[in-house]
């Protein structure tokens, strides 16, 4: 082991003993446990303890502990509204349903508040309450402090702690216990019964024990050895709390219902809490670039404060003042007719005066950001962005978009100074350096102890990470495994869904800890932007003896966070267009400091299109972790030398752009209830493609349809059936080595075909789409939304990206589906399409890519650049090679003839 083991690592020693016996803190540990029969329930006063039902054969229980600094789970959202955060979440939810804990704690509903008060019900996952994110109690005495988020002035009316935990098999249950306490006062004592498998307990906490303000709930474990076990195993003393199934539920009463801006994005903030759409309300229909920009700024501000939670935005124009015409101001004598849910109102003082009332309006003395609780039964809040003038309003919106602006613990603020922009840097893995997993990798995947067998890390690679070559990344895995790991066990390493290597686990009676096990990963499996590195254990259970036989824990293996990854220096080339890069980093629109201008163009004026544009820009801000202030929003292209992102219904797109895409061959469904119909189409046309006029002569430009091989990177396992339905054939590779070879050859043929098509004149290019049963031109395969990236027809080395649907309403819904992680991260290649029903997207590459920048000047980078160029243009490299060999053959031939003439 390198360096000095931190104290926390030393604490982890008992879990993986044997080997060289060095301590280790597993950042991420997978436990594959044998299924234990359910045991009787224990009950105490105020405490309900039950045995977790485990389905026979389910077999595996996984436990994932987040590293410090890992993203908090979206536990604030009730289970019913919770959306999968990653494709892995989605996969598991598809396969296993939503996490059990989320449904195990039913919402108590809204209590009737007292006059002048509001009730806020919160469901808080335990990992969010622990500073280190580690929910493991180790050693004979262990303690875990949970921070309680109850804001000042609030009253806890009801509280309950639900714990799901499992203890080491070596514990002696008679003398081991877990105590829940606050301020030194024990609230409950729970048994630690390792034989029972996972134990679940629900503890009702006295409301008066949880005063408002920062406070701490303490879990203390006293853990004793099991008697009669081997000495080595008796050192295993731990209790693991299931992070997915352990919750704290609070019912908090606000004495005056007041909200403060500093709570924006916090768990108790009502805006965005439900997971539904947020409405941005403008005083009039948005028809100017300014108002489109204003909404976009607010969307970005909201998104960045909600971190990674998908944010869906709808646009509503306020109704005209009641009966007074004009429609430019909100009605003064009528209550604001806001839709249920979350709202943001933007407008100038004049526009909002009558609506908000004099008391609030008087606060608007300049650029204004305020929050007010609506007087309705839900206690929803409304965020107000305003100003005396449009300039003030723009200033306020821009400030709000800036995450560096610290919002005060007050209902409103007048922004008088714009804080310097300090976007949160994306923690890129830098090639050429050795970095630890915990240094930059955030584990992903469901945090359930019963479903997950994989351990996944999300790595971000910079956009100029060129990966077409044959080099290898070197992973040095530090891992430990328990004594009962049987012969033939292995830890598979998977990169972006592709098998990359394996580690054989030695059949050891004592378990072991291994440092620096090298695994070579083909660099080609990585890509710029978001990458998922997965460890998948394949464990067998050794013949149990002694304590292992008594234990209900099965074989386990843990990968430590100080495992390292080294990526070789690569060519710093950005090849565009690439939807994968767009989805991972927002590139090129999200690249701060890019010299090239960037624009987002909404191609229609209807609220649905505008809402879709705002939703998209919000997701891009989250992706780029920056407010994208350089992104220019408008209804038309003001700078044709910009990278342009078009958002709009298919029929409204710029034909100069659309004609260069294969969208005409894509079958996009319309919204059945849509009132908007594109010109020239009618109900009788459905479900034919809406736009036929854009089909280029010859049916496309070297289209390459989707193939089954694309499904290998399909992030959502549960969506395979849908994929098969879409492409019309099974995606599971046929068994046997020939099937694998055939799949690999399939790739080669595609690459070669594409390269050939690049060489041919346009008119000669084969219509590959017509030959292959892909998603182009096949009426049985219909989608709701599509994204296409292409080289800009207006400027060299610029891209145009199109996000579109058949009609505005469908566009709004399609973009809402798009920003969900499972679909967003499935964007690949330069054409992608998706449906509303299923997460995920079908993707393909149609056109060749081009490098975004000029060749570099340094020798090393120049060589790498040209290598990458040739990798993108194999024909040129082949011509070079053939020319060189021909010359060599010619000289050799002449030489041989001369030698022969001289008798050798």
């Amino acid at each position, binding site marked *: 082991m390198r360096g000095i083991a931190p104290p926390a690592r030393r604490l982890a020693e008992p879990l993986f003993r044997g080997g060289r016996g060095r301590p280790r803190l597993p950042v991420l540990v997978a436990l594959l446990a044998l299924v234990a029969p359910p045991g009787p329930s224990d009950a105490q006063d105020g405490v309900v303890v039950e045995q977790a039902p485990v389905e026979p054969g389910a077999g595996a229980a996984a436990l994932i502990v987040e590293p410090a600094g890992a993203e908090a789970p979206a536990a604030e959202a009730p289970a019913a509204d919770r959306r999968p955060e990653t494709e892995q979440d989605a996969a598991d939810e598809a396969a296993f349903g939503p996490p059990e804990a989320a449904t195990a704690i039913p919402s108590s509903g809204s209590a009737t508040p007292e006059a002048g008060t509001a009730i806020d019900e919160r469901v808080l996952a335990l990992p969010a309450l622990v500073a280190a994110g580690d929910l493991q109690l180790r050693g004979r005495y262990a303690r875990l402090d949970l921070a309680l988020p109850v804001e000042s002035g609030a009253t806890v009316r009801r509280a309950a702690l639900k714990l799901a935990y499992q203890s080491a098999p070596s514990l002696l249950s008679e003398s081991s216990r877990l105590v829940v306490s606050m301020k030194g006062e024990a609230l409950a004592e729970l048994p630690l019964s390792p034989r029972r498998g996972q134990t679940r307990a629900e503890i009702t906490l006295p409301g008066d024990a949880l005063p408002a303000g920062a406070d701490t709930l303490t879990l203390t474990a006293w853990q004793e050895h099991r008697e009669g076990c081997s000495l080595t195993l008796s050192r295993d003393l731990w209790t693991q709390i299931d992070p997915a199934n352990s919750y704290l539920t609070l019912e908090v009463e606000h004495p005056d219902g007041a909200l403060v801006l500093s709570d924006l994005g916090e768990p108790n903030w009502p805006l965005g809490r439900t997971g539904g759409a947020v409405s941005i309300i403008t005083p009039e229909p948005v028809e100017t670039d300014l108002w489109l920009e204003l909404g976009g700024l607010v969307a970005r501000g909201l998104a960045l404060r909600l971190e990674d939670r998908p944010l869906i935005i709808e646009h509503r124009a306020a109704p005209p003042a009641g009966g007074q015409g004009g429609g430019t101001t909100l009605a003064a004598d009528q209550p604001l007719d806001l839709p249920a849910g979350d709202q943001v109102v933007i407008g100038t003082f004049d526009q909002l005066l009558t609506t908000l009332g004099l008391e609030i309006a008087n606060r608007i003395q300049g650029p204004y950001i305020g929050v007010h609780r609506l007087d309705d039964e839900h206690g929803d809040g409304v965020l107000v962005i305003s100003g005396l003038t449009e300039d003030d309003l723009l200033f306020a919106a821009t400030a709000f978009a800036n995450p560096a602006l610290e919002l005060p613990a007050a209902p409103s603020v007048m922004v008088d100074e714009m804080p310097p922009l300090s976007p949160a840097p994306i923690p890129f893995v830098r090639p050429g350096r050795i970095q630890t997993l915990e240094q930059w990798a955030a584990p992903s995947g469901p945090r359930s102890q019963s479903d997950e067998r994989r351990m996944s890390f999300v790595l971000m690679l910079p956009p100029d990470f060129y990966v077409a070559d044959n080099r290898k990344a070197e992973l040095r895995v530090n891992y430990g495994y328990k004594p009962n790991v049987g012969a033939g066990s292995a830890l598979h390493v998977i990169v972006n869904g592709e098998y990359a290597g394996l580690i054989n686990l030695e059949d050891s009676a004592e378990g072991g800890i291994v440092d620096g096990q090298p695994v070579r990963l083909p660099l080609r499996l990585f890509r710029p932007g978001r990458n998922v590195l997965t460890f998948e254990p394949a464990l067998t259970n050794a013949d149990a003896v002694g304590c292992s036989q008594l234990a209900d824990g099965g074989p386990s293996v843990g990968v430590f966070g100080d495992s390292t990854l080294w990526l070789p220096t690569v060519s710093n080339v950005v090849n565009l267009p690439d939807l994968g890069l767009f989805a991972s980093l927002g590139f090129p629109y999200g690249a701060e400091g890019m010299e090239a201008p960037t624009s987002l163009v909404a191609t229609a004026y209807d609220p649905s299109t505008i809402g879709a544009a705002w939703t998209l820009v919000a997701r891009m801000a989250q992706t780029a972790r920056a407010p994208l202030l350089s992104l220019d929003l408008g209804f038309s292209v003001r700078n044709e030398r910009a990278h342009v992102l078009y958002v709009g219904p298919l029929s409204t797109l710029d034909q100069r752009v659309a004609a260069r895409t294969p969208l005409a061959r894509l079958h996009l469904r319309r919204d059945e209830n849509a009132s908007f119909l594109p010109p020239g189409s009618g109900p009788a046309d459905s479900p034919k493609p809406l736009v036929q006029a854009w089909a280029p002569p010859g049916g496309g430009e070297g289209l390459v349809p989707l193939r089954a091989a694309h499904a290998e990177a399909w992030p959502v396992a549960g969506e395979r059936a849908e994929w098969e339905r879409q492409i019309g054939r099974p995606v599971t590779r046929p068994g046997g080595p020939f099937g694998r070879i055939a799949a690999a050859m399939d790739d080669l043929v595609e690459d070669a075909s594409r390269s050939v098509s690049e060489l041919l004149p346009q008119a000669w290019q084969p219509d590959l789409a017509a030959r292959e049963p892909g998603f182009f031109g096949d009426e049985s395969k219909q989608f709701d939304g599509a994204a296409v990236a292409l080289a800009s027809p207006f400027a060299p080395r610029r891209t145009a990206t199109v996000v579109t649907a058949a009609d505005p309403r469908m566009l709004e819904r399609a973009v809402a589906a798009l920003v969900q992680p499972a679909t967003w991260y499935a964007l690949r290649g330069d054409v992608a399409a998706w449906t509303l029903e299923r997460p995920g997207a079908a993707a393909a590459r149609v056109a060749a890519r081009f490098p975004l920048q000029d060749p570099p000047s340094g020798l090393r980078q120049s060589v790498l650049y040209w290598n990458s160029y040739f990798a993108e243009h194999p024909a040129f490299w082949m011509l070079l090679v053939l020319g060189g060999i021909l010359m060599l053959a010619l000289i050799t031939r002449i030489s041989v003839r001369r030698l*022969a003439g001289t008798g050798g």
Partner: protein
Amino acid sequence: MTPFLLTFWLLCATIVFWIGLQDVGLATQAWLALAAIASLLALRLFKPSGLIRMFILLLAAFVTLRYLSWRTFYSLPPVDSSGFAPGLILYLAELHAIGLYFLGMFANLAPKERAPARLPQHLENYPSVDVFIATYNEPIEILRITLTAATHIRYPKSRLEIFLLDDGGTDEKLHGRNATAAAAARQRADGLRRLCEELGVHYLTRRSNTHAKAGNINSALTQSSGDLVLVLDADHVPAQDILEQTVGHFLRDPKLALVQTPHFFVNPDPVERNLGTFYMMPSESEMFYQAVQKGLDFWNASMFCGSAAVLRRRHLLRVGGIATSSVTEDALTSLELHAAGYNSAYVDRPVVAGLAPETFDSFVTQRTRWAQGMVQILLLNNPLLKRGLTPAQRLCYLNSCLFWLFPFSRLVFVAAPLCYLFFGLRIFEATLSEFILFTLPHVLCSLMIANHLFGRLRWPFVSDLYELLLSLFTIRPVLVVLGRPRAPRFRVTPKGDAIVADQVTRLAMPVFILFCTLLIAALIGLFRYYASPLEQDHLTIVMAWNVVNLALALAGLGVMYERAGGASTGWILRDKPINVVTRSWEARGVLQSASLQAARLVIDFDQAQGVDPGERYGQVQIVLPGSGMVSDFPILIEREDVHRGQLVLDAWFLPDGWQDEHGLVALCFGDSAAWVAFQEQRQRERSLAGAFAALFMLGLSRSLMMAKAILFRERLVPVSTDSTAMVPYHDLWKGRR
């Protein structure tokens, strides 16, 4: 090659080499692979020559260069991984194989077709020639044939002297401590003296057996005086035109020291016989003699092969005679001659007919000596360091020496997949795509190139089979040489061993163990393939590799079941016109094939109307090679058969006196054109798949027969390693009687 050309060539080669090292991704590699394979297919189909052929060869070499680059930089296991050590060994084995591939390609760049060199018109211009026939323990019957044929050599008698160099009759042998052996030696020596007197041949011997064959020839050099020396092994029967084909070259080039001719074998080696491929597949030696030697000749590096070669005495003596510091004295002698600045020539015409080892045991003995000798040369007379050689000669000799390290690389290739299948060691870091795009094209291209260069002379995978079998038995002797380069002693290859019944060779056990190991590994692979879906890519690579090894091992296992001797030996196809005369009928026909004992006569049906089946005795009238007269040979007709409208007679020769014996030797061995025709009729190209399937099926068939024999026979006769009981030129009839 002018300095300008050389510089330009080096510049181009450097650029192409540099391009080959660049990492340009899999799609680009796919292009290259497709282009190379398509070119090689074109090479196979259209047989282009000149510049196009050269281009395709270089393109294939470029594919291998890309593979080597990828292996070196991207597919080796991490240094501190458990797979590194075996991975490095595999890499070194591949380096060896690829190095040989490139060297072989260089050596065979422009095979030289030499025009015949005529002898002078006037007798006084003929150089004098001494024929040295070296013997140690070969039976007198064999030597009788060789010596008889030597007396038939067409060359002015005044310029030709024939010497029998008997190393079995030295003082050391005749007066050895072992009285029985000494008596046998005396008896043999006496017999040989009488034979020499009978044939008019000089009998030479010496005091001791120092330096074995090399010492024997060197001793004879001191007792003779001819300008040229024709060296023959005891079993190498010369054709009448052997000197007509060779001596003329010496008159053209005064610096010429050596003219080598091919070794043609009238019987199959154990692999050919046990798999039954002698008449359908080119012999193993043909590739070396009809392709490699011609390639070496272009670079003035053709090698002395110990027999069937003519050397210029003066030049030979200048380098100290036949070299003695290696058990392959022949190769070392040619190395010394080349290093001294003398030239060599290779005449691609079989003018001797010899005997290949009959048993697998003696075959291994022969190849072990070759391997040890060439490694000795590598260690003690390294061609790269030897002064006087041209760069091309260095590379050619290096190729010849390095080849004999094949036991290491071959066994590594066999063991490599087992590392993963048995122990899970990843020693080859590659994905399936990389394997398909880098390894497969390299393997395919090298196989196709080999098939292009040598396909007519050796089926694909035959080399692999020979190397696999020999690796198991030569690895230890080669290791011994590497440790003690001067340790090996010359061992005469036993010739003419008789196998009286089908039997399992005593050397079968290692091959059997190897086969079982590979089979078990294949089964484990299958199990893991379905048990570990994530490993399927890697398993696909490993299992495919293992299956190839397994098929070769199966073919090798078939070789271990040795066929009874005589079934297919010593028959030369002739198609020579004859008259068959009996007391009751006469007919014109064709001598289809003949050995010294028997012949197959074919008579057209219209000629056979008057044939009396009851008539058993008669005569064959035939014009013998080198004679313008019709000779008669008494025959006994054993059997008649009608086949495709022809009457086929199988007959025994009944030689009566020395004239008939001379006539039979002249009939069977006098005309080298018959051997050329025989070789050409079996030189047919096979596709990669066809050859692989044929070897697999032949191996499977023989293995099943062996299994049946082991299971149902009561007793298996062990192969005799004692070569004293020899019957020269077994023939078909003995097998039938």
